[in-house]
């Protein structure tokens, strides 16, 4: 059944690992958590679990700053919410899903923040047919993910919180302060108290900063963690290969992994994001988001093309065309910046390193 979904939730995707960890977890758990903080750490950052059958290896799922993950886990065990901020494509959402699935067994209890998010979506709304038929009663109430989280003692995830108008965001303040949500329509029964284990994980894009800045009062109720892009090229290459492989597997694309192509892409993304090549040449940073997630997407597109239209091997021309599509989205100057990168950095690498870089350099003519 699992493979029929495009993207199965984390708790289903890693159900076996979670079960292994749960069954062999001797650590102290915060109330209502399924795993101890140590086991959550192992689930996200990888490690070995001692089981009666021997050691079981748990693969790493989040790359980058391990201490950040540890801080996230500890924050969630406390009384403050966790706010993950960072550039788009830095795996904030993935981290929040992993944390939710590991701690509560549910990663789908989510509010998606948009410009159109209303207070109803955050607190509760009504099934109007039932409301008219039975009046305000619990049956007619449609609970929001926040209310569900409070009642069950699990995490509620609030994605892209800064896309939501500030006054709507502020409706979280009373919930986070008092751990109580009042539903006046239900009278005496309308006071919902948060069960232990409840917390909120928010995510916010730093590119959205200024769209709807969070109020100071709300900020005080969160601990902030800034998720940085991957700083190590070889690690970025590893992530591209791993993620693209997973996507290919899910899409039944049986293409061999071309590590050279993954490296080209990792280096290109890394250097354009940093504005400096490994040789020390300064290059202009495109306005577009140069995240690892984007690189994965470009790589996946390339191998999909190779699978359906080619001979199964990644074509560098197609890679460049996909790169063009990914980079030149919002700003027309980005095309010139990409061309300049090919003229300088790629050309230099073609001379020095040769191999795939030489072929890659030849595809510069496709950038138009």
């Amino acid at each position, binding site marked *: 059944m699992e493979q029929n979904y495009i993207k199965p939730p984390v708790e289903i995707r890693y159900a076996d690992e979670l079960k292994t960890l749960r069954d062999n977890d001797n650590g102290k758990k915060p109330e209502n958590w399924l795993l101890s903080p140590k086991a959550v750490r192992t689930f996200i950052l990888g490690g070995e679990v001692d089981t009666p059958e021997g050691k079981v290896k748990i693969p790493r799922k989040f790359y980058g700053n391990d201490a950040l993950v540890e801080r996230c886990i500890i924050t969630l065990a406390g009384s403050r919410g966790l706010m993950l901020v960072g550039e788009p494509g830095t795996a904030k959402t993935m981290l929040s899903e992993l944390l939710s699935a590991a701690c509560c067994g549910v990663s789908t209890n989510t509010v998606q923040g948009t410009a159109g998010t209303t207070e109803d979506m955050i607190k509760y709304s009504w099934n109007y047919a039932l409301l008219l038929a039975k009046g305000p009663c619990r049956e007619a109430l449609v609970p929001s993910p926040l209310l569900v989280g409070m009642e069950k003692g699990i995490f509620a995830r609030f994605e892209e919180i800064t896309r939501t108008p500030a006054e709507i965001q502020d409706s979280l303040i009373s919930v986070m302060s008092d751990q109580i949500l009042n539903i006046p329509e239900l009278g005496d029964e309308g006071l919902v108290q948060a069960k232990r284990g409840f917390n909120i994980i928010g995510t916010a894009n730093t590119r959205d900063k200024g769209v709807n800045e969070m109020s*100071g009062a709300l900020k005080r109720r969160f601990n902030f963690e800034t998720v940085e892009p991957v700083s190590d090229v070889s690690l970025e290459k590893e992530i591209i290969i791993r993620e693209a492989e997973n996507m290919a597997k899910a899409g039944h694309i049986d293409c061999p992994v071309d590590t050279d192509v993954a490296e080209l892409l990792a280096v290109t993304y890394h250097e354009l994001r940093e504005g400096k090549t490994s040789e020390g040449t300064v290059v202009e940073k495109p306005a577009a988001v140069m995240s690892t997630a984007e690189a994965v997407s470009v790589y996946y597109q390339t191998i999909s093309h190779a699978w359906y239209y080619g001979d199964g091997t990644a074509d560098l021309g197609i890679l460049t065309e996909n790169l063009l599509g990914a980079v030149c989205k919002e700003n027309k100057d980005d095309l010139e910046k990409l061309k300049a990168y090919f003229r300088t950095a790629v050309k230099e690498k073609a001379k020095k390193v040769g191999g795939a870089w030489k072929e890659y350099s030849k595809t510069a003519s496709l950038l138009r």
Partner: protein
Amino acid sequence: MEGIFKDSLFAEITGEAGELLKYDTSGDLLLFPVRHHSPVCSYQILRAVEEFSPTAILVEGPENANGLIPVLTDERTELPAAFYYFYKDKKKLVSEDAEDYKCYYPFLYSSPEFNALAAAAAKGIRAAFIDLPYCEILINTAKGKGLRTEKEKHSYTDDTRLIRSKFYKKLCEKTGIRNFEEFWEKYFEIEGLKLTPAEFCKNMHTYCVLTRAQEKDSELEADGTLARERHMALRIKEALDKGEKVLVVTGGLHSLGLAKLLKSGKIKAEKLHKMTPDIQGSFPTAYSYEAADALHGYASGMRFPAFYDGIMKRIVNGADPANVYNDATLELLIKTAKESSKKDIAISIADITSAQTVMNGLAALRNVSQCGISELADGITSAFIKGEKTISSAMPLDIMRRLATGDGIGHIGDKTHVPPLVADFEKQCDIFKLKYASVIPQEADVPLFLGERGLNLSRFMHRITYLDTGFATLTKGPDLKRGKDRSRVRELWKYRRTPQVDAALIDHTTDGFTIEEACTNLAARALTEHRRCQDAAQTAIDCFLMGIPLTGHQKELLYDIVSEDGDFFSIGEGLRCFARLCDLQKLYEFEDSSSFACLEKCMSRLIPALPSMANSPEETASDVVDVMRRMYSLTGSMLENWRDTLEGALLTLVGSKDKNPEVYGAAMGLLYALEPSRRSAAEDAMRGFLQGSEKVRMQGADYLKGLFCTAGDIVLADDSFLYMTDELITGFEREDYLEILPSMRLAFSYFTPSEIQSIAKAVAGIHGVKDKDIIYGDTIDEGLFEFGKKLDSLITARLNGGEMQ
């Protein structure tokens, strides 16, 4: 700690020498491995001293500072302090370059070496350093290795090997730890407090032996390690042979080497060279926490020295080691919150509580029994930084790091061994109430002419600056050397004591016993070395600022330099300096008759040379004009009796056949200033330029530049020069005009803005327009503008279309 190394590992890796590394309190020898500035090592050393009861404590350190040990352990001495070692390789024993070498051996309260020495002093047992003398270490070290690497600062306590080891990286990977410091803090600093000295010693030996196993013997020989170990082993053997019960405190990496040498019994004595105190020595000196941490870049000890010093102080004062880190980190957390609040970063009690919760949670998650500095940093990151982590939002983290590093500076109690210049420096600072016991930059506002103190303080600051100590920087005030801002009556100094200040003072020890004496001797030496008038004059200004009078011999020397220098410009600069000195003598209460004699001598040398400067090349013409102006100005004040002679020299100059137009113009201007009736001559000369060939006309601009520089008022007297200037400018083709434009711009820069405005009005008048007409231009008809705009866009569209086709 348990679980990191297997019990059997120790015996496996140490082999036969392992028995000498065992913690055996019944034996005669205990080799105790340490990491520099590590509180846990200090704590365990103190316990080992009690358990082992040695009769001698031998410590790794150059033995030529043995006499200074009592200074360090003196109760009046406050740490951080350091031993400063110097060696002048005059005998070329280190290399053919005959360089000077220096290094520090810093001590903090958390230094195990200090605690070992202090314990010996407290128990009245012998304590000694056992390493090779500093010069011998250098002699035994290959170029580019160890203490001979190309670094600005050298620390004897170098931990590079401990940190660069690949071994710890593997351990980090295995234990899920980010870096060496975090690894060290967790497994040694915090968990090590729970161990007995014997267990701690074993763990340290195991780690260090595994680290050393990755070093090649050739490397150890090249950086002098093996030679040093041979010498240390020899000293240990001597002590054992005397029947002493010896506790040896060395860096952990040496332990196995020493044990092997002692086990074999064959120790080759290193050749020691005879050195005199003027080429090799050591002094105790105050040191700063900042330097102890800054040197960390060169891997010389722990990060955050003030924090770890605080840990050791707490333990010594009886705090429970099982809770000492929790207390210290909580205190630092609160201090960070307070300091942040002072900088308008709102941190509430709830934030502090949240940070502490995170810290404790992380300590539990990471299996560490107390919160260390890593957990503290994480707690602050999590709870104090609101919003995205950027340079500005991460300020609480910077504040915490600053507090943990510390800004204190030590103090040497027993002044007997303090270098005389450092002692005098501190004495003078006390007199002037300068805050020198902190590395935080301070400011001193010095009113020069309000009472005696101001001038004396200024002189002290100039003296300490002359010694190139880096202690003080003049940020505002009269700059007599460059001739700027001389009308200012206050000086604003920024000053800051760093170990480098002490180092520079120690380097000058051979120059004198007081700062004044050192400056006097240095200035005297400088005068004997100078050959140029301008350099000698600058030294005279230095002496003037420092309030150091020249002796009769020095005055003669100065006069001779002025008399013998043949460079027009150097003497011209000397003229400026001596004039300044004569001018300010009274104000600065500094009588010096030699300045006027030198000034006159400069003038007497310049006047005969002046006519020969008529044909100066273009690039030096402006400098010649400057000197001429200076000479003219002085003949109006201090050197009145030289006016006629100057006039004669100028007349000779303008009578020369080949003249640089700028110098010519300046000379004509000065002659006009001396005698206004010469105006017509200046006009004639200008007319000559106007009537000449194109090339000569272009020189007219330079002539005007020189003329306006010395006699700008000539233009304002009547319109004739304006007419000629106008004729000159309008007579040029566009390209030629652009060529003379820079000179013309410079020529008019000698006028004030209001003079330029009145000249502009007059020029506009010549052309029958008003200044406003030039500024605003003609009004364009709106319809015409619209038509033009439309036409423009049509043409652009057509052109673009054409291109596309």
